[in-house]
């Protein structure tokens, strides 16, 4: 007896709905074009299927851990922080990160200003530093609402800002890619870079959260 037979549909039925649609399913015509082009290029020996697989693996191996290392260094090295804020591409190149044709623009959170990033037109994101964007970053809900009511959207992420702190929304519409430099949490004086990086999450680099506070119970 298979597991499917044991599924008796007591609490729901399967007749009146299809699978949950993705917000943006690939266009079948474009998918077909991609397949035709890929097969042609492989057939002509321009690259191999393994080259494509390796390129995809490398793309998907990128993660917010790189962004966290960059921030940890900026928190502990004033000269690096200045370089990061003024010449983002060359600063992150010292970590072996290439931004390609995009220009990295790092925006610093302060006690007076909180920055948050969005791309209302599509899903521009500093992938070299943060990897694949989360699905909410690409959702129409986030993209349309964070420019309209940033404080409300931030509150939904658990980030409530005092009225006296300015919110600055960056709509990533063109050739720049944005990274938020979060505020360094209190109680981290003298911490090494690896420990500092452990407080830096993906969401605080997009600006919907603050860096984690140190776990004082573990000290």
């Amino acid at each position, binding site marked *: 007896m298979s597991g499917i037979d044991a599924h008796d549909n007591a609490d729901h039925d399967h007749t009146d709905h299809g699978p949950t649609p993705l917000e943006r399913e690939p266009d079948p015509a474009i998918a077909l074009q991609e397949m035709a082009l890929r097969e042609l290029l492989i057939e002509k020996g321009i690259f191999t299927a393994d080259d494509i697989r390796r390129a995809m693996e490398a793309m998907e191996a990128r993660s917010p851990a790189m962004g966290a290392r960059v921030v940890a260094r900026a928190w502990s090295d004033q000269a690096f922080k200045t370089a990061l804020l003024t010449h983002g591409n060359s600063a992150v190149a010292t970590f072996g990160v290439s931004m390609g044709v995009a*220009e990295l623009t790092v925006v610093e959170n302060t006690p007076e200003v909180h920055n948050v990033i969005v791309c*209302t*037109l599509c899903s521009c994101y500093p992938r070299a530093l943060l990897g694949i964007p989360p699905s909410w970053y690409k959702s129409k809900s986030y993209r349309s609402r964070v*420019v*309209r*009511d*940033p*404080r409300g959207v931030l509150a939904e992420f658990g980030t409530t800002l005092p*009225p*006296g*702190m*300015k*919110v*600055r*929304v*960056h*709509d*990533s*519409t*063109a*050739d*720049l890619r944005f990274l938020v430099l979060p505020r360094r949490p209190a109680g981290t004086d003298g911490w090494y870079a690896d420990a500092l990086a452990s407080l830096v999450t993906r969401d605080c680099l997009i600006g919907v959260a603050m860096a984690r506070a140190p776990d004082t119970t573990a000290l």
Partner: protein
Amino acid sequence: MTPAFALGDNVVISPRDQPGHVRTPCYLRGRRGRIIQVCGAFPDPELLAQGTLGIPYRVLYRVAFALYAVWPDYAGAPSDDLIADLYEHWLESEEKHP
């Protein structure tokens, strides 16, 4: 390529409707903003999208908008703002919009 606008200039975003791969969000068209950074020249994305080299290049600016000026019923703090990256051919001098 000499930028037509400078840091601190007030500009109005062109309200024109234009089909194609346009990188100027609709919600900013017709709004007033201020140049906070001149970023240099980049290939024109509207032409790049047509399979060309994006020539002529366009000067890109970072333009700041008060959120209460973008959304008349904005309920956040008066100092809250938004910065978008916009190409020169979408910017108009505020003198044209008294």
